[in-house]
């Protein structure tokens, strides 16, 4: 609609003044060539200096000659797209197809290289920030030199395309910096200085683009009908025109920029190399560093999913997050004496009822009774727990302890000491405890009713899973229960995998059902929940627990030896020779979920249901980057296929083989063809959708005009449509025709039409155009 109005205003100006400033169409080809060349130089330097500056700053090795040549090719290819309209449209399509096809072919290598770069960068960041853990992206190809080069090629091509828009298209310094500076800033943020030559290159490009942008004589329009050298801009009070490109402007800009950049680099090279403290001096910098830490540790999704409110525990909430994001901040400080190599569990939450993807405490809370039981394994230990950042709703108690033995200092509820009876081996479970709780009817009902309850809609899934699990054949009931739990563990161990980023449970799907049937990967909450329900389905009372675990590895790595007297903290047998009281900081990455199995005559005992991690990646960053692409390729590509299709026919050069033709494009993999077809289908679908929406919008607007009796817009629509039809059929040749020109063309069209067809079109063009003029210009 706006374009129609513009045309009318333009024509009104012609009608009133009979004079407008026209357009120069005398651009010399040699000039256009040189301007494309100059812009290509800028794109090349910016692309090379930003990407290679990043790689060199982190000392990542790559094939430099290939990168230099390839980047030059990309840069000049894209800059010469602006040579004229035909080249612009034809070669942009070729570029898009080539980029997509090559990315489909080399996806695994490029992704691997991309992951390699990220891993190296994260490693440096982790070192810089002193982070406890490093996120490792999965590299499917081990040859980093190769993969990084391929990844850099794709990154370079993508950057060159963007830079071509910001430099050749708009000549905008801000946008150019926005595309290139983040690469260098990744290194600069942790004070890794790239070589001066890269900074010189970027300075040169930025300065040149500033000069060229403000000169107003750097652009070269190609999208119009003709290759205009002269740009017409209709302003509110005046008409503005500009000669678009001028070669000396480029030469001047390049000269000034080079001298200025060189002087700056020479003057500042020495001060730039001075060491800088990594400790931020202000709050904004500190906060930014915190965000960077989250990014390094947990990726982008770390900003969205958070367990921080529970200090690492979900309190039985399941499936709400796509991944576990520990912040590695200390939640508890635990002082105790290590007596064996077993993991120590500090239980905070007990879930008895499984309802709608969540664990809830029993309506009748037996925990106080359980916590007052007296255990005796021939030893006594003391534990000091300081809650620093853990969820204060829970007390974190070791097995087996009694709440009667908890002592709180007067000053704080977050610090307490507890006397507990650590279990040295499973044999201790044979020492039955004969107390009132075991014989209590309510408790019996709780154990054999509540702790055996499984939602009805889950039974089928659980039974199906249990068909794959061989139950224990032990006659001893307690032994049977423990061995059954181990059988479930083994099943998970062999068929499932551990990951901290399994993804969210879909809406209206059960957490355990989805885990068992679809996900088959997860973290502790998944395994503990599933094991609990599977055990219950087998008739074994079990429940879900959350808290913190202290593995022996944590004790070895982070424990601080205290001056306390060992004898005051522990008495009894032990499997470790060390006689020391240790203080262990426990961060939220040690927040954990496990299960408890009921042993007859004894009570609930802990059982580790979670299988170990085997270096499974939680590379959500790569999924974020390539999520769209992965969704399209839908796992149709794998490296084995890729490996066999590089040169599938090498050594067999005799005879004609149609596959050889496809080999040129590496198209003989059906999956690649399917992928490419899908991409094309998406774009064709998008185009169809665009035209459909456009058609509907016009129809709706026309309906509104008709309803409002808006003759002005209706006439403009009809007139524009008629003009477009006459132009399309070649009757109207002028760029800005007046109504009289359109009338003449329409008369001619009608005359030709009536000559050719028996059916005559009888239109009073004079009256029609008088009406048009009256409505449009009055």
């Amino acid at each position, binding site marked *: 609609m706006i374009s129609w109005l513009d045309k009318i205003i333009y024509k009104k100006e012609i009608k009133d*003044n009979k*004079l407008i400033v026209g357009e120069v169409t005398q651009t010399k080809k040699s000039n256009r060539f040189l301007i494309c060349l100059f812009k290509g130089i800028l794109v090349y330097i910016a692309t090379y200096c930003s990407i290679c500056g990043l790689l060199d700053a982190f000392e990542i090795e790559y094939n430099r000659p290939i990168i230099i040549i390839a980047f030059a090719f990309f840069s000049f290819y894209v800059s010469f797209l602006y040579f004229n309209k035909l080249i612009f449209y034809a070669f942009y399509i070729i570029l898009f197809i080539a980029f997509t096809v090559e990315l489909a072919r080399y996806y695994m290598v490029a992704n691997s290289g991309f992951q390699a770069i990220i891993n190296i960068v994260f490693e440096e960041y982790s070192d810089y920030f002193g982070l406890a853990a490093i996120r490792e992206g999965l590299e499917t190809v081990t040859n980093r030199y190769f993969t990084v080069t391929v990844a850099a090629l794709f990154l370079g091509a993508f950057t060159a395309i963007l830079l071509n828009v910001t430099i050749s298209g708009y000549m905008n310094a801000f946008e150019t910096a926005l595309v290139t500076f983040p690469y260098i800033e990744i290194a600069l943020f942790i004070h890794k200085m790239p070589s001066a030559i890269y*900074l010189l290159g970027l300075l040169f490009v930025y300065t040149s683009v*500033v000069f060229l942008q403000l000169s107003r*004589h750097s652009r070269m329009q190609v999208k119009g009908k003709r290759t205009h050298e002269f740009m017409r801009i209709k302003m509110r009070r005046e008409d503005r025109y*500009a000669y678009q490109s*001028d070669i000396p402007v480029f030469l001047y800009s390049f000269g000034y920029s080079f001298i*200025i950049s060189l002087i700056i680099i020479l003057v500042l090279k020495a001060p*730039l190399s*001075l060491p800088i403290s990594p400790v931020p001096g202000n709050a904004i910098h500190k906060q930014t560093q915190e965000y960077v830490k989250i990014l390094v540790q947990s990726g982008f999704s770390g900003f969205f999913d958070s367990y921080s409110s529970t200090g690492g525990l979900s309190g039985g909430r399941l499936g709400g997050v796509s991944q576990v994001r520990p912040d590695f901040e200390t939640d508890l400080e635990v002082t105790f004496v290590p007596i064996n190599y077993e993991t120590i569990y500090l239980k905070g939450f007990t879930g008895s009822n499984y309802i709608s993807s969540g664990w809830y405490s029993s309506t009748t809370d037996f925990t106080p009774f359980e916590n007052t039981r007296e255990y005796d394994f021939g030893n006594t230990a003391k534990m000091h727990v300081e809650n620093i950042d853990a969820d204060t709703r829970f007390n974190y108690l070791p097995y087996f302890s009694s709440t009667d033995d908890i002592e709180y200092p007067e000053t704080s509820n977050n610090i307490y000491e507890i006397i507990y009876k650590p279990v040295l081996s499973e044999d201790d479970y044979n020492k039955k405890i004969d107390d009132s709780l075991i014989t209590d009817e309510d408790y019996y009902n709780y154990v054999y009713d509540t702790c055996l309850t499984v939602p009805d809609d889950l039974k089928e899934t659980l039974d199906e899973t249990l068909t794959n699990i061989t139950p224990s054949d032990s006659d001893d009931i307690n032994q049977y229960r423990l061995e059954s739990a181990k059988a479930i563990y083994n099943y998970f161990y062999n068929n499932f995998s551990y990951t901290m980023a399994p993804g969210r449970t879909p809406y209206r799907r059960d957490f355990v059902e989805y885990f068992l049937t679809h996900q088959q990967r997860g973290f502790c909450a998944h395994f503990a929940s599933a094991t609990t329900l599977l055990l219950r389905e087998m008739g074994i009372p079990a429940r879900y627990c959350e808290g913190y675990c202290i593995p022996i590895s944590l004790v070895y790595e982070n424990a601080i030896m205290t001056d306390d007297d060992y004898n005051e903290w522990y008495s009894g047998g032990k499997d470790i020779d060390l006689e020391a009281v240790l203080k262990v900081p426990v961060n939220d990455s040690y927040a954990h979920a496990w299960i408890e199995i009921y042993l007859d005559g004894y009570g609930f005992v802990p059982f580790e249901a979670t299988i170990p991690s085997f270096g499974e990646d939680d590379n959500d960053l790569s999924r974020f980057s390539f999520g769209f692409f992965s969704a399209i390729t839908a796992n149709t590509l794998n490296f084995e296929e890729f490996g066999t299709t590089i040169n599938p026919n090498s050594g067999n050069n005799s005879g004609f083989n149609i596959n050889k033709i496809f080999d040129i494009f590496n198209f003989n993999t059906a999956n690649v063809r399917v992928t490419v077809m899908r991409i094309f289908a998406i774009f064709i679908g998008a185009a169809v959708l665009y035209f459909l929406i456009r058609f509907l919008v016009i129809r709706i607007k026309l309906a509104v005009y008709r309803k409002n009796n808006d003759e002005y817009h209706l006439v403009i629509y009809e007139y524009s449509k008629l003009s477009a039809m006459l132009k399309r059929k070649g009757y109207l040749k002028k760029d800005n025709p007046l109504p009289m020109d359109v009338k003449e063309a329409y008369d001619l069209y009608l005359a030709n039409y009536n000559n050719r067809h028996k059916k005559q079109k009888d239109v009073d063009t004079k009256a029609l155009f008088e009406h048009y003029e009256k409505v449009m210009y009055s």
Partner: protein
Amino acid sequence: MKVNILTLILYIFSIGIISALALIYEQPAIVLFILMLFILIPVSLIVFFNVSDKFTFTLSPVSDYVEEPNSPAFVLEYKNAAPIGLFSCDVVFTAENNFYPSMTKHKMSIPLTRKSNSFTIPLESYDIGLVSITIEKFILHDYLSIFRKEINVSLESSVPVLPKERNIGDFPPAVPKDGPDEFTESENIGNISSDVKEIREYRPGDRLQRIHWKLSAKLDDLFVKEMAHTSSLAIILVPELCRDEIHDTAESLLSCIKIMYEKKERFEVCIYNDISCDYTFFTVTDEAGLLEAMTHFYCQPLYEGRENALNTYLHSSGKIATVIHIIGKTIKISE
């Protein structure tokens, strides 16, 4: 020297943002970019001060005249006495067709990077008339467009847009023998002469215009002048500057003039000024004369009447000639 406040604010804002980033994030490398922006200002200013007064400009039309449907164009040339050029200069001008006055201001940006260069200012004309362009001022900008210097000038140039020549048939037309404007048997416009061949007594049917009033008064009888049919007889083309039909009138006038001077006829064009009630004669023998006459024709004020020029000429002129009255597409011989 003036300052572009908006650009300056934007520039300072950019420096401020980058400085803030450098300070907050303790990034010495970003200082490079601040320094770059700071250095650009003095570089730009030094060049601007030394160069901005070294330019001279001239304006001229691309051709002496333009024939429909071609459009006129003007060439703006500059010469730079300094060794370094500037990137941007705004040329503020007005352009109009004298029949359709316009107040629209145009601003054209040109680079001044060479020792001398010329730029075309293309105009698209949609009607005949005298197309003129007046450059009011040049605004020179420094490299960063922060400072500007305005040079007020008054460069003018104009070019007539002539109509297309029309086929007006057999011209000059033959004069009908029996009619109110009757000439003798072989008379046609081309042979009309102002020389008197003989004086004879008045006969009924003679035109009043031919009466020799002086002699008639002396001899107390009516005598008429019999004109000699020689090629020296003058023809006067009297076009009407009627507002509604100016395009057709100009087209007819041009067509008549071209045919006449190609046939080497002796004729004059009488162009009337409705405000001063004065008229000017142009003897056209070549293209230069044609251009002069048409330019003068375009420069006259338009009016609503259809015979203003003819009536004024007939009543005030002592010239004896055949008058061809031109209005719109009508070309007729008048008494």
